[in-house]
Structure formats: structure tokens, C-alpha cells
């Protein structure tokens, strides 16, 4: 059992403080209905240096471990922050050996213009619906239906299948044969596009370490999304506690009714359990093997998907009709949660992977 250290808590508080000051309220609400992308905010966060947290010092970053991004994502979730934070913090940090062939990775850190991850592996379940991408003779072909921030990206990091497994390749979005179509989004904090590549030349990673690298990106994406979901659940919980303490029915605050109290107490317990799971998973992730990291990440993401949805549903319920309108924060929390729930797998999908991994061990 790893010691319960609170990785990156300091970074988390800094992000929390900044967003409380500069983002909460009208700005947040405006951006949540603006399509999930705001160039101004992206540039502003880059300016603050947040994207360099886990980038090695030799590349001008702070060299913190990836796990220190966890509390940052929890804070982002708690403030319902809009934009490509996963793309701007995780990808540059994980892909730093490839900065020379893909300078846009460095630029993302500096400018906030994202690198989009074109990954058909956002689910293992009915992958045919999501699309496929293949690499032959250094040329990429295929399409992915849902790519976060591809319409805004200066670079595509493409996960493609080869005969030797999956690899990450880089593609300049202006290359001929690349087609990026922005599509509507049901996630108030994310912009999406469809990306199709038609025999496009790829720059990129050697297939040798490809599988390892792809697994690492996906595992960390799962861990950070779990943290973000934990933050969203916290936010929904906070708003609910405030609301039921004030809102009166039958002459008393609804939070004094036992049935309401018990629903709220379950939300509290569940949100606390998720927060602690995220903290523990981050602590254990740092030294974990690729296989162990995968199980840790599946576990955290599976639980986050389930708990955040449940907490948000209770939050909406306890807000009554108001919770169902866009005028309450909890509705945005719920929409955000529903979008993130299945991104890189929901509970049902990931539990099967966990079970299979555990039952195969001897």
C-alpha cells in the first residue's frame, strides 16, 4: 500500500484559486454555452504556465510527475472549466521525446493552441462506430467520428493500427488528404470534430515502443478524466448543499427533511469515496508497471463514471425543476459528466477489462 501522499495538491489549489477569481460565475456560464472552446481562455491558461507542469525541465517545464496533474484536473472539474486541458498538459508531457519532430507540442504549452489526439480507442465497445485508423508504409488512412478540439488543433497526434500493434504518429492538419469537420457537441466544455485521413504521410513514433506509449497515454487520460469527474461531482454536491439549506418548502428548508438529508449524505459519502480513490490511484500510478497502471486507470475511471453520474442525478433531483434548467450549475455538471462518462470507457466496459485482467493473472 502506497503512503497516502497528496500529490500535486499545491498545484491544485493554485488552479482552484485562480479559477475562483478569474473564471467562476458569468464567464464560466457564458463559455459553457459557447461550444466548448474559447481561444482567449486557452491562451490565458497557457500564459499562466499550467501546461508545463509535467513537462520535463529541459523542455522548459516544471518536471513534476504526471500524477501532480490529478489535483489540477480535480480543480478544473470543480470549476467546470472549458477547453483542451487534457490535450495541452498531458500530450506534451507524455510525448516529449518527440518534441523535435513535432514542435507544435511545445507550442501547445506556450500558446494553448491544442494538439488533438485522434484515437479510435476511446472505447473498446463497438469500435466500428467510432472509426479506425491504419498505418501502412508511413501513410495513414481512416476516420474517427469524435475527436476533441481537432478543429482548433495545430497538430494531430494520431493513434494508428499497424501489423505490429498501435503507434502514435503526427500529422499537420493542413496536409492534403486531411479532412477535419467540426461537429455539434453535447459536452458543454468540449468542441468536437470528425477527422478523416486519406493516405496522409505520417511523421512519428517508431512502432517498437508504440503499444507502450499508447497504453500510457490512455491510462493517464483515464486517470485525469476520473479526477475531473471527481471535481464535477464535488461541485454538484456543493451547490446542492447550499440549495437545500436555503430552499424552503412546507415552511422549512428542504435540507431538514430526512429523506432529502439521506440522499444528500449518500452524495457526500460517494463523492468523498471517489476523491479518495483518485488520490490513492495517483499515488500508486507513479511507480506502476504499464499493466498495473492500466488496471489502476480502468478502476478509477470506472468508478468515477458511475459515481459522478449518480451524484449529479441526485443533485438535479434535489434541485427540483430548477436543476433541470440551464440556469442551475448542476445541469451543466450533469451534461459534462454524461459526456466524460464514456470517454475512454464507462463502468460497464471497464469492469469487463478489469475482470479479464485479474482473472488472467496466475
Amino acid at each position, binding site marked *: 500500500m502506497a503512503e497516502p501522499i497528496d500529490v500535486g495538491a499545491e498545484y491544485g489549489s493554485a488552479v482552484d484559486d485562480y479559477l475562483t477569481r478569474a473564471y467562476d460565475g458569468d464567464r464560466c456560464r457564458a463559455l459553457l454555452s459557447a461550444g466548448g472552446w474559447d481561444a482567449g481562455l486557452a491562451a490565458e491558461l497557457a500564459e499562466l504556465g499550467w501546461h508545463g507542469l509535467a513537462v520535463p525541465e529541459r523542455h522548459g517545464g516544471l518536471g513534476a510527475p504526471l500524477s501532480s496533474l490529478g489535483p489540477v484536473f480535480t480543480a478544473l472539474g470543480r470549476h467546470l472549466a472549458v477547453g483542451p486541458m487534457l490535450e495541452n498538459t498531458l500530450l506534451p508531457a507524455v510525448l516529449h521525446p518527440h518534441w523535435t519532430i513535432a514542435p507544435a507540442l511545445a507550442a501547445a504549452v506556450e500558446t494553448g493552441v491544442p494538439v488533438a489526439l485522434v484515437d479510435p480507442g476511446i472505447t473498446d*465497445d*463497438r469500435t466500428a*462506430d467510432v472509426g479506425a485508423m491504419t498505418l501502412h508504409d508511413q501513410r495513414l488512412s481512416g476516420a474517427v467520428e469524435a475527436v476533441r478540439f481537432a478543429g482548433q488543433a495545430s497538430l494531430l497526434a494520431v493513434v494508428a493500427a499497424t501489423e505490429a500493434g498501435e503507434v502514435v504518429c503526427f500529422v499537420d492538419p493542413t496536409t492534403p488528404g486531411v479532412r477535419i469537420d467540426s461537429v*455539434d457537441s453535447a459536452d458543454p466544455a468540449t468542441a468536437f470534430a470528425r477527422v478523416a485521413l486519406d493516405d496522409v504521410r505520417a511523421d512519428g513514433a517508431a512502432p517498437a515502443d508504440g503499444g507502450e506509449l499508447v497504453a500510457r497515454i490512455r491510462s493517464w487520460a483515464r486517470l485525469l478524466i476520473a479526477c475531473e469527474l471527481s471535481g464535477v461531482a464535488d461541485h454538484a454536491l456543493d451547490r446542492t448543499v447550499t440549495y437545500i439549506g436555503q430552499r424552503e*418548502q412546507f415552511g422549512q428548508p428542504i435540507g431538514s427533511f430526512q*429523506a432529502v438529508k439521506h440522499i444528500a449524505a449518500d452524495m457526500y459519502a460517494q463523492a468523498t469515496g471517489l476523491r479518495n480513490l483518485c488520490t490513492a490511484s495517483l499515488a500508486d500510478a507513479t511507480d506502476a508497471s504499464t499493466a498495473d497502471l492500466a488496471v489502476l486507470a480502468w478502476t478509477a475511471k470506472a468508478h468515477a463514471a458511475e459515481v459522478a453520474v449518480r451524484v449529479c442525478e441526485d443533485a438535479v433531483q434535489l434541485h*427540483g*425543476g430548477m436543476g*433541470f434548467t440551464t440556469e442551475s450549475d448542476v445541469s451543466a455538471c450533469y451534461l459534462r459528466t454524461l*459526456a466524460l462518462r464514456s470517454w475512454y470507457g464507462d463502468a460497464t466496459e471497464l469492469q469487463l477489462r478489469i475482470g479479464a485482467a485479474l482473472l488472467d493473472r496466475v
Partner: protein
Amino acid sequence: MTVQPPSAPTESLDAFRTRARAWLAAADIPEVPRDIDSRFATLRQWQKTLFEAGWVGIAWSKQAGGQGLSHLHHLVFVGELARAGAPQPIGLIGLEVVGPSIDRYGTDWQRHELLPRLLSGDDIWCQGFSEPNAGSDLASLRTRAVADGDEFLVSGQKIWTSWAHLSHWCALLVRTDTSVRKQAGISYLLVDMTSPGITTRPITQMTGDREFCEVFFDDVRVPRANLLGGVNEGWAIATHTLGSERAGATLRRRVECEVALDEALDHLRAARGSSSDDRATAAVGRAHVAMRVLDAQTRQTTARLVADTGPTPMDSVDKLLLTDVEQIVFAEIAALLGPLRAVPGARARGLLSQRWAYEHLYSRAASIYGGSSQIQRTIIAERLMGLPRG
């Protein structure tokens, strides 16, 4: 399309169904636009079409302008509309809540003046019952009406009033006496929405819908002739009608859910081809079980409606089970969208993302509107199980 003659009152359900099906097969069923103003206009026109063909007010008496058939005939038509993919008439508040109240409690003038246009869709009615500070505790409403000669002067605020900004009339509950028990000081006014002093503000739901409104009343003058029933008799009128309407609403919603699940099954079958998909299989199994529970439960509802038992606390059991079922069904289907739920235009397993995400979100409101699940549980515990009041 020609107006069909109203059928004989003894028309069998099967004959009625056949006639409805034939008419719907030939009818020009409108596409429902997303834009709210065009949607309203289209649906109002559709109600007019239905009315002219004799499909509105099916269970209303002929004297009141209806078809004089039974509730079962009405339900058959509701089902046929849903199965034909046709929208229900937009004036449901008028047809199922306000109209029956006017018919039962109204003056001759009110009945003759208001009911024909309510049926035809010329007048669309909205319901001004809920208030921002009186959610589950409906009777604590504060919108006040003060008698002033032949008029009432109305001031206050309503909420969750659907289509208020486009409606012609509003059924409004107001406080006319603050000195008595809260239920005893409420009156029921029929308010012309063009009266000076009324402003409306649509509220956006997380589904994207904008038909619910806040309505503000600022010294609005309402003629005394527009009082339904007597002064301070509004609560009894409102609860009677709300109760009666519940069984019909449950049965209508059942049909909608059934039709939606059938449609999802069609998409899943078409997309599945020959490959196995355990996740979809399990989801369909769970959804089917839930739907059968609702089917079984609503057989009792239908029996009560036919026997005309009036509102009973069993309605709360119906409501709780209906809520359960629709939340299970649409959660199961929507979960099959996977990550493509985030992209409304995508299809997963043949299911169009935005359609099923919408149904799922809408189902979440079921445990809130029409009396929250918490309220229903209290009614069941105290009125059906005889548990002591807390």
C-alpha cells in the same frame, strides 16, 4: 382531407382503431421543427387538422363539443398517433386539465365562449399553478388577486408554465384570502394572456427545450366573469382536475415509451448485423422487462379510468413505477451510445446520438414534474400503507 362524420357512440374499439389507422395513414403528418416558434405554429395547425377530422376531445361529451366516446377510445387514438410517429395535439393542458374543469365547474358563458376554441386549437391554454417558492408545496402559492369592482387585480409570479409566451389563455391559481388555511384561500381564474401587465420569460431546459416559462403578473385586470367556480374554491377544482388527468398522462407516456423502445430495437437490429453485442443484448433485456412492468401496471390504470374511480393514491404508485421504467429504459438505450453521446450527429449501434441523449435527459425530469418522487413516496406511505404522519 375531408372532415369525417363523427362516428356512432357505440363504435367498437377495433372499428375505431381501424378508422384511426386509416385516417393517419392518409394524413399529412407534419415534421416537428426544432425552432420553438415554428414548432408551436406547426403543432397548433396539426391540432386544427385533428379537430376538423373529429380526433380531438374524443372522450368529451358531444354537448361540450367532443366526440362522446369513451376514455378507451381516446387511449386507442393516443396510441395510434404515437405509432404513426405523429405528434400529440399541442393543447394538452387545455384538453386534459383546463377544459374538463371549465366543462364541470364553468358558467354557461365560460363553456360556450372558451371550449370550442380550446378544442380546435384556436386558443392554446397554459397552466399557471406552480410558483418559484411553492414547488412541491403547491398550496403555498402567493400570487394575489384582489377584488376591485367587477374585476380582480392580479400580481405575482408563476413558473414552469409551458408555452406561456405563445399561449392565448392561462388557467391561473391565485390567493384571494390570506386569513385562512392555505388550501382554503385559493381561487381559479381564466386569464386572457394578452391582458396588459403580463410578461413571460422562457427558461432553457438542459434538453435544449424552451417551452417552460416564468410568467409575471403586474396588476393584471381580470374580469370577475372569468372566475371559475366560486371565490376560494380554486384548490378543489385544481386538485380534482390534476388528479383526473394523471391516469391519462400515465397512459400516454406509456405509449410514447413503448414506441420509442420499439424504434430503438429496430435501429439496433438493423445495425447489429450478425455480430454479437452482449452489451446491447443485456440492455434490451433490461429495458424490455421494465416496459412489461409498465404495461402490466397500466392495465390497472386503464381499469380505473374505465371505472371512473377518480383520483386515488394508487396514482402515486403508477407515477413512481412509470418514472422508474422510463428512467431505466432510456438510461439503458442511451448508455449504448458510448463516447459518441458527446457528438449529437453521430450514430452508435445505429442509434442517432442526439435523439437518445434527449430521451434520456427528458426521462430524468420524470422524477421531478407532476409531483416529485419524494412527494409520491410520502403519499404512498401515509395514504396507502397507513404509516403515521411524521
